[in-house]
């Protein structure tokens, strides 16, 4: 399986993040790990690009972030933990429907098995 990166990912990253957060609250690095696991290693994401996408999602009210507790037994700077909001959940369902339609239509044109 070829790698999926750059332009192919653009436009889908926010939905992918919402999907990763559906599995539970997570900080940036954990979200990335979930995406890597879900993509079976085929997703080639510049890790830093996750954060602008998270900030946009938060500004749109689709996710909500909070700094983890100071008493977390962990070295290093505090992390911001994100959770999907009800609005974010609705947006994810919409995006799934849209993507399903997209692959049905485009897959049909290209003659790919859907």
């Amino acid at each position: 399986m070829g790698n999926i990166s750059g332009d192919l990912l653009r436009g889908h990253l926010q939905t992918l993040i919402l999907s990763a957060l559906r599995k539970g609250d997570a900080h940036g690095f954990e979200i990335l790990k979930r995406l890597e696991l879900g993509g079976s290693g085929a997703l080639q994401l510049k890790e830093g690009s996750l954060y602008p996408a998270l900030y946009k999602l938060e500004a749109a009210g689709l996710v909500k972030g909070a700094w983890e507790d100071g008493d977390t037994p962990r070295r290093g700077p505090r992390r911001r933990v994100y959770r999907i909001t009800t609005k974010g959940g609705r947006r994810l369902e919409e995006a799934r429907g849209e993507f399903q339609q997209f692959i049905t239509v485009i897959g049909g044109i290209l003659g790919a098995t859907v």
Partner: protein
Amino acid sequence: MKDLLIHVEKIVRPVRAIAPRKLRMRRELLAHLQAALEEERGRDGDEVSALARAKVRLGEPSELTRGLQASVPWIERMLLARLPLPAAAERMEKYSGRWWKLDCPMTMTQASILVAGSTMLPFIALMGLVMGLHLDREEAQRLMVERPPTWVILNLGSIAVVLALSMICARWIIAVASSTKPWRSPAAIGPAASIIVLPAASIVLTVACLNRRVATVGELFWSLGMGLLLMLSQAIIGRLVATLRQPYAEWLTLDIAG
């Protein structure tokens, strides 16, 4: 650790956004980079190559800066946009920044507090000083008519005192903000003493010009008291700036040019 901080700062510093937003970006990217570094260390014990790989994983700094900039609300981007200025204005800004000590790394809020404190408070203190002295106003009016050059010199002198006091106050605020024990710092003692002495000196000259007499002990005590009050109020502003600066200081003082 410093390498990580510098790499993050290279990404975040050029972003036009309010300071708390940038601080949040810094902290999140640093936490991520540190996690990536720990993972890379597990693969290969070599610290240098692990650090290089962690940086590559994060992405190209200029690309990340663009991405982060795009995530900032448009109103904030617009308000913080740097307008192109003529070279002469840029030079003047740099020069005046040095005089007012605004070239010390700080956020916009901290600089605003410093400028407001070092310009408004001396003005208020001098106004209070003059009003409390009950200077002979008729004499002042007569001086204006009879000896215009003296009147002009007195006014120019007052403007110079206000400007000098503002500059000294800014230096004192910075000295208090930068040190936990400013009274031990030579950079702080000079401005602190000047803030107390300068109003008294200006009153001695004003009374001599206006009323043609030597300032009384009461007037001297009043002006020294006002100077002391001004110095203490500026110290409070300095501590406030220091408190606000604390989470940012580590980042703002990083040299990212290398």
